């Protein structure tokens, strides 16, 4: 077999791999469609106000880790305090911020030193002081040494006293009914241990006093591409996996967990940058091994709005980190791969994430290289090249457009027709550069992982609804608590 035969065989493999991957995305979207319709119908019969009036909703603690969030923390905390929920506490964990995050909170909410007894002993970096608001008795701030987002969440869990806690980012804004929507499934199914909501891009939207006033697409192309990516990931991918009862990811930006379950598995792992996915995988593993009934769900209508990167550098760093987090989550629980003990998680979801999400970027990049070699050495006809590229674009566009259709079928958050048409245009445009860039960053993430890089990267914040440009770098710590989201594509 000559080198050219090998190259040819590899190209065929890439073609097959690419076909299976994209076909699975499409299938996911169709499954999501069915599930979303069912969910939307069910939602019609649910009267949130009756849930609100009743004494039944379990108390919830919102754990919001904050690292250098001086620009956004006020809006976010105000939004948290304005949530519609009968009984909840807000626990902001200041993870050793080097900016004025704590001062901003102290002044705005009249924080005073307070005692609060921890009810769990998950190891964390030392807590310096616990603060409580005079103006809002349900607002607490735990000030601790920097230890990263997972460490901050663990500190929050240690101080949590409610049966449920909500893990979120301090720079995210929850919609007013988001918490009741996400807590409701815990009333309907006592075996539920974790549920994740949808994360949407806040760039371009107007948020005042913690309330979302106007929903618009972001101004920059980079952020708009991410809107489309998030729609694909949350309305297509996650809903599809939920339909299969195989949810493997709950976004760190917004998820509700049964506290006892998370304490039982030892909380978040601070030595990973993908602590949110790693926790969910570990919960699956734990309950499957103990053969205890449990459920982990994705709920599509509770919304957390979050700011996404608007610069290539920051976005690259974010995707690099997500890829590393994915690798860590999967390799640390590798025994689940094709292991029937773990049911459909081990036999379906885990292999999918392992071979398509984790190894996908490497294979895809290998494909690009082999493809280029074949083209430049004259081993691929122009027609073949054109056909392959056309197929790639056709798949990409169709998957994205079905995701936009899912949005229109269900939640219709973007009220202007112009925004809808822009999303279609973006579905075409993203195939020429953006997707390849994302692949490159994900490959870089693999390389970073091999080089044992543990950086969180930098997040530039502009604050919500200000329309300001030129953000301020606010997260340059090696273990900062930057907003976190999994693989969007």
């Amino acid at each position, binding site marked *: 077999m000559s080198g050219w035969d090998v190259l040819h065989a590899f190209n065929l493999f890439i073609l097959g791999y690419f076909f299976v991957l994209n076909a699975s995305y499409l299938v996911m979207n169709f499954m999501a469609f069915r599930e979303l319709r069912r969910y939307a119908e069910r939602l019609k019969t649910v009267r949130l106000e009756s849930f609100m009036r009743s004494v039944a909703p379990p108390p919830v603690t919102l754990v919001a880790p904050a690292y250098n969030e001086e620009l956004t923390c006020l809006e976010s905390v105000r939004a948290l305090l304005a949530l519609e929920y009968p009984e909840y506490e807000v626990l902001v964990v200041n993870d050793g911020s080097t900016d004025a995050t704590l001062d901003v909170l102290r002044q705005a909410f009249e924080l005073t030193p307070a005692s609060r007894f921890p009810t769990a002993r998950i190891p964390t970096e030392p807590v310096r002081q616990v603060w409580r608001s005079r103006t809002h008795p349900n607002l607490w701030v735990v000030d601790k040494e920097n230890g990263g987002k997972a460490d901050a969440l663990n500190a929050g869990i240690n101080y949590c006293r409610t049966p449920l806690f909500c893990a979120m980012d301090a720079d995210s804004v929850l919609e007013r009914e988001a918490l009741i929507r996400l807590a409701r499934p815990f009333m309907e199914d006592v075996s539920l241990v974790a549920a994740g909501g949808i994360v949407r891009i806040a760039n371009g939207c107007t948020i005042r006093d913690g309330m979302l006033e106007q929903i618009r697409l972001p101004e920059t192309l980079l952020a708009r591409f991410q809107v489309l990516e998030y729609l694909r990931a949350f309305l297509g991918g996650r809903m599809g996996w939920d339909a299969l009862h195989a949810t493997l990811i709950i976004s760190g930006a917004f998820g509700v967990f049964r506290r006892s379950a998370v304490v039982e598995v030892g909380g978040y792992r601070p030595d990973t940058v993908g602590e949110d996915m790693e926790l969910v995988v570990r919960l699956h593993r734990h309950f499957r091994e103990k053969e205890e009934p449990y459920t982990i769900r994705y709920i599509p209508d509770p919304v957390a709005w979050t700011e996404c990167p608007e610069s290539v550098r920051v976005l690259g760093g974010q995707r690099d980190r997500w890829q590393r987090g994915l690798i860590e989550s999967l390799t640390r629980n590798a025994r689940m791969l094709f292991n029937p003990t773990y049911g459909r998680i081990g036999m379906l979801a885990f292999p999918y994430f392992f071979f398509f999400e984790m190894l996908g970027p490497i294979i895809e990049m290998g494909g690009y290289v082999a493809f280029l070699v074949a083209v430049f050495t004259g081993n691929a006809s122009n027609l073949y090249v054109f056909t392959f590229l056309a197929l790639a674009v056709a798949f990409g566009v*169709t998957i994205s457009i079905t995701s936009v259709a899912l949005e229109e079928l269900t939640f219709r958050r973007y009220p202007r027709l112009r925004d809808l048409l822009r999303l*279609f245009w973006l579905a075409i445009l993203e195939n020429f550069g953006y997707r390849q860039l994302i692949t490159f960053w994900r490959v870089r993430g693999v390389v970073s992982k091999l080089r044992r890089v543990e950086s969180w990267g930098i997040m530039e914040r502009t604050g919500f609804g200000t329309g300001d440009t030129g953000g301020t770098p606010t997260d340059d710590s090696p273990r900062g608590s930057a907003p976190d989201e999994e693989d969007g594509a």
Partner: protein
Amino acid sequence: MLREILDLLVERSLQDQAFFVLLVLIVLLVLAAVAFAVFTVALRYRNTQRERRWIRLEEKWESVLLDVLAGDAPPETLLDRVRGEDRRYFVDFLLRYARHLKGQELETVRTLAAPYLDLSLTEVETPNPGRRAWAIQTLATLGPRRYRSTLVEALDDPSPVVAMVAARSMTEERGPDSAREILGRLHRYVLWSRSFLAEMLSSLGADVAPDLAAVYRDPDERPGVRAICGEALMQIGLPGSADMAVDVLESTDLEAVAEEAEDTAEVTHFGDERELVITSLRILEELGRPEHLPLVRELTESMDPVLRSLAVSVLGRAGEPDEDGPRVISALHDPSPWVALHAARSLRELGLTGELERLAHSDSVRADLAREVLSA
């Protein structure tokens, strides 16, 4: 034509055949993308039109409805404005109002809806559980008496959501009859949170307390169902509940329950017997008196930290400082932080803050706890 193409393809090389397949796939994908895009825009157009139409209809009906509700116009004035194709919209419109109305106004809305409710009745037969649930909710809100038998049948619907919608709607109507129908089927709702179910039952009011008490005390009933009824009794605050709780505790093998809970391994499902014991202790915490405490004192030594916590709380609420103080002080140093937390609160309730003061000024790991409870 297709046959000719296929014949032609068979004669070509494998590479050409593959190329053809790819080409067909591309065309199909492009067509699908275009179809979805058109579908989405059409959907947007239809939704916008619907919304506009809905607003127009609402405006047309709303002012007349307010007149009818105020008694300034007869119901016919509004009914005359409902065209045949708008009947479903009209029922939905009334449903939205009915949720916020009570008394005579609600009855007026029900009278207005009556001619159209058979439309919803036909929906009860559809295989789609979402539509069935919606229909049941409509009938329960706008025609609870006329469609009572349908609602009772819906309690046995194969879809748990439909059954729950029916149960929830019936509890809003109140009355012992509804309670009996629901109580007989409580085991169908095992997945729902017990506090949710208890709240649903207690919302029926004190009239249903005897039925709840009967189930709570019935040793032949499922322990999980008894626990729900016990919790509902607690929420209603029936005076004899504490005596019943003691009876229930005395008739339960508490050691076996504690052993079952060893290591608090079961995070998602407490055993049913354990739930029953927990509920009974919570009743005593709310309604207990000193004469109810002998067994509770024993439970402060239970292997199960949840039972220890609750027992200590009961002592804080209903105990005697002299007799129960030492037990509660000892629980301050329990290995479980939850037991310690409950103990600290109980000490404050018993008025024994001296021990907390001492602890607060010590270098004990529980000093923070004492300070917190003292400053609360």
